[in-house]
């Protein structure tokens, strides 16, 4: 049989633990070798991606914050410049005319940032305003005028109007042509700042806001927080702004959402601007990138695993084939040869195996022949001894007959008796010769896959009637599944029959013959072997220790009419099948014959 034509199921691996299999080990080592650089590269990439995105987001937001801060500062600066320019114009006009009023009204109309402009006299009282002047309007006071006279521009702290809206005040000193002094005072609304903040919010859930020195929101992309006079209370950012620092920080807000906040101070004020985003949104690109990297890494691992599996399988399969071949050879299929594949070491090993198998088979055949010759010689010796007895008996009886015939009065009855003895001895000789021939002329084994349970069942059915007549009960027990051996069915059946007959003959007063068929295994220096065991337990009173030593000897029998060949033949047949037969016995109780044969396969029940 050619190794390549065998089914893969023949490959003996089921009994080897998964982790101990060469395929598993090679596969794991291949995958590990392939995975390690991929996983390391993946980890490095994900870390780099995360760090880069975090860096980009925080820097982008910080840049936004700084730019917005600069834009707000520019707006305030622009407002101061416009006011300064308006002051220069106003002080050239005659305050008794309507012209200064027109001028400041036009400024309020055209420059959105100005909510209201007023011209104050040197006592700090409002002379002209773009808004209605009521008695309750607060004037700035002489100290304020005096302070401005020193030449400094004035920028107030942030104030909150009656309408809950933040504003600041700007002022410029006025020196009229007639030498009188005054102040150009403006109220600046922070709507422009709101618009800038609105446009600075990043992402869908991002927020931008400005808070004053107390942390109160004065501009926020979520207006509710301004009108609700909410406070920003992340102390580290407040401290940063107080220290005129900019930077970024990750913190958890009151809702437990992690935010990445970039902050920058607003020049000339003690306000701070923050542009923040929930980290899940801000770092979404990093997560996407990480997911992509993970997918790529997993795909690479899968591909590497598949390649490793295919490659490992290519390595392991010839080894399995070799193992299978060795196993088949070891279970008696001496004709089995493996067809080497490739030109590698395993192919060489296969060739070596084939050479070894050929030589071993030849050697074994020679051994068998020698062994057989020895057996036959021994048998011939025994036979010659055995033949002597009937021949002696025949000679004696023939001589007695002759003497009897020589008598005058022939006793026919006696004569007939002596003839019968001679005939019986001839018959005995014939039987001896036949049995000898049975052993000596060994037919060639015709092996095939034989299911033991079926064979046993057939024997039981054949001897059931006889057993019943002798008041013997035959009970069979089989392991689940069919146990199959590679054997010459007729020969192996003969062996079992011999054992069964021996058992039936031993139970002269009835009893029980229990036949048990089961799978077993053994580990020898040659490896692991699957076996089938057939146990014949009878209650025939057992065998003495002395008899046990000779029970498989040719012509050894303790029975009156026994030939002493049944168990010897059984042993010979079992030997021919690379099996063994053992016997154990408890005197006056039972005897167990156990036949062990190599198992080819076991099918599921």
């Amino acid at each position, binding site marked *: 049989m050619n190794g390549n034509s065998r089914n893969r199921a023949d490959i003996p691996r089921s009994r080897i633990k998964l982790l101990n299999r060469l395929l598993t080990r090679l596969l794991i080592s291949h995958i590990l070798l392939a995975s390690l650089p991929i996983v390391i590269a993946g980890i490095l990439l994900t870390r780099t991606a995360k760090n880069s995105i975090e860096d980009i987001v925080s820097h982008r937001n910080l840049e936004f914050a700084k730019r917005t801060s600069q834009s707000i500062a520019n707006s305030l600066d622009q407002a101061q410049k416009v006011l300064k320019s308006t002051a220069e114009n106003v002080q050239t006009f005659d305050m008794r005319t309507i012209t200064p009023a027109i001028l400041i009204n036009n400024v309020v109309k055209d420059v959105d940032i100005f909510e209201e402009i007023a011209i104050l006299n040197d006592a700090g009282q409002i002379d002209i305003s773009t808004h209605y002047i009521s008695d309750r309007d607060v004037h700035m006071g002489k100290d304020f005028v005096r302070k401005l006279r020193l030449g400094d521009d004035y920028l107030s702290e942030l104030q909150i109007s009656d309408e*809950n809206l933040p504003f600041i005040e700007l002022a410029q000193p006025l020196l009229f042509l007639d030498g009188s002094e005054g102040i150009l005072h403006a109220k600046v609304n922070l709507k422009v700042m709101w618009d800038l903040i609105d446009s600075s919010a990043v992402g869908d859930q991002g927020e931008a806001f400005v808070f004053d020195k107390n942390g109160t929101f004065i501009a926020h992309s979520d207006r509710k927080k301004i*009108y*609700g006079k909410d406070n920003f209370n992340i102390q580290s950012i407040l401290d940063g702004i107080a220290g005129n620092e900019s930077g970024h920080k990750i913190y958890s807000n009151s809702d437990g959402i992690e935010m990445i906040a970039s902050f920058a101070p607003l020049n000339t004020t003690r306000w701070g601007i923050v542009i923040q985003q929930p980290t899940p949104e801000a770092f979404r690109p990093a997560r996407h990138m990480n997911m992509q990297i993970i997918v790529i890494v997993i795909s690479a691992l899968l591909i590497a695993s598949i390649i490793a599996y295919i490659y490992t399988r290519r390595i392991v399969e010839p080894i399995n084939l070799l193992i299978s071949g060795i196993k088949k050879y070891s279970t008696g299929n001496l004709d089995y040869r493996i067809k080497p594949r490739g030109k590698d070491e395993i192919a060489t090993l296969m060739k070596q195996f084939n050479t070894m198998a050929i030589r071993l088979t030849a050697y074994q055949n020679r051994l068998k022949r020698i062994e057989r010759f020895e057996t036959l010689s021994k048998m011939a010796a025994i036979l010659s001894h055995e033949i002597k007895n009937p021949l002696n008996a025949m000679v004696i009886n023939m001589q007695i007959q002759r003497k009897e015939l020589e008598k005058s009065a022939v006793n026919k009855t006696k004569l007939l008796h002596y003839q019968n003895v001679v005939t019986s001895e001839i018959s005995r000789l014939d039987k001896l010769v036949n049995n000898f021939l049975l052993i000596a002329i060994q037919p060639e084994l015709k092996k095939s896959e034989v299911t033991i349970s079926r064979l046993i069942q057939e024997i039981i059915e054949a001897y059931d009637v006889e057993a019943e007549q002798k008041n013997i009960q035959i009970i069979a027990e089989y392991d689940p599944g069919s146990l199959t051996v590679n054997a010459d069915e007729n020969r192996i059946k003969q062996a079992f029959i011999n054992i069964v007959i021996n058992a039936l003959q031993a139970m002269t007063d009835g009893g029980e013959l229990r036949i048990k068929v089961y799978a077993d295994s053994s580990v020898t220096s040659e490896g692991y072997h699957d076996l089938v065991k057939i146990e014949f337990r009878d209650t025939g009173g057992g065998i003495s220790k002395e008899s046990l030593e000779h029970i498989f000897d040719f012509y050894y029998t303790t029975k009156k009419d026994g030939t002493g060949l049944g168990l010897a033949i059984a042993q010979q047949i079992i030997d021919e099948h690379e099996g063994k037969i053992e016997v154990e016995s408890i005197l006056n109780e039972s005897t167990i014959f156990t036949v062990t044969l190599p198992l080819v396969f076991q099918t599921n029940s």
Partner: protein
Amino acid sequence: MVKRSIFIYLFLCSASTFVYPQSYGENSIVIGELSGRVDYQNVGELLKSNFYPVSRNTERISFTQVKNTPKEVVYKNNYPPPYTPQYIVIRFFESEKSLLAAIITEEIDYSRTESAQIADEIDKANSAIKVLFKIRPSHYAKLIAYNNNHPLLANRNIRKALTYAINKRYIHKNLLDSRANIAYGPLDVSSQLYIQEFEDYKYQPQRAMRTLRMEGCRDSNNDGVLEKNNIPLKFTLIYEKGVLPDEDIVRLVKLDWNKIGIDAAIRPMSKMDIVKSVNSGRYDALLTNIQFDDTVENLKKHFSITGEENIFSYYNKTASYFLDMAGEQKPPTRDQLMQGVVRAVIKDQPASFLFFIWLDWYFVNTNKFDQFIENRKEILPFDEWKFKK
């Protein structure tokens, strides 16, 4: 120590009462209103007249006033639960900006504005506030009413010059963003009494100055303000306090008048003070809104010397005669007579007719109500609103 604790407790109680508006339970509707737009003493009348959409069934409108202060007016429903709302609270604000803050922070359940800026801001700031709009009826005019008994404003040509000086198109474009039509008379183009002559009152500053010169107005002291008979052309223009577009309109009107040598002091007033000033005849000019229509009764109400809402103290003999006659006539004679009245009004310019604003914005706090509109846009009466549990 005990005294001190009691004092602190009383102080805190009074402070909390001051800071937080009183709550009238879940079944109350809090309306935000401007003190410049509505006289708090007149709220009862407004409820009855369904000025606020209280109920389809006017007989169902039965409320008892339980609080009446300039800051807050509260009415309790005379029908017990399950009728809703059990309380209607009208909270007054000084300006639309402070009302805006209250709407955004959801202290207010319902309010309205003319200002698209405010509507936009609210829409942007709080998604829980539903912003709706409603088309106003025709001939709802925004105008500057003049006191025709004023020594200078009694002069028809000076009133005409004031109208010529106002750049309505600029205001229309820059402030109202085309949510209004420019007005040239009391009736808009949808009226059958509308006549083309109305459009003569376009922005003509040169014509205004020429008209004033013809009336003998001179800047004799070179202060930039004209005088007539030694009386400077300085007027006080009052307007409804806190109403956002009006604040901007008066500033622009003042600038336009300044350009032709007329000075105007702009003065915001509460509705109550406006009513008092107008009723007593102690005002110069007033920016206000008047609902006209092309019926004899309406024109009589506003332009007849005996009309109960003739805030201008306007009198034109011919117009009065026509109005008296029109009541007794049938179309087309009546229409011709009414058209004569309108023509007289336009010629006399008892007011500078500025715009017909045709859009109002309404706000509803959806965190409090489930069902407040029908057909996707019409606001339901308050008694049909479903309160959220």
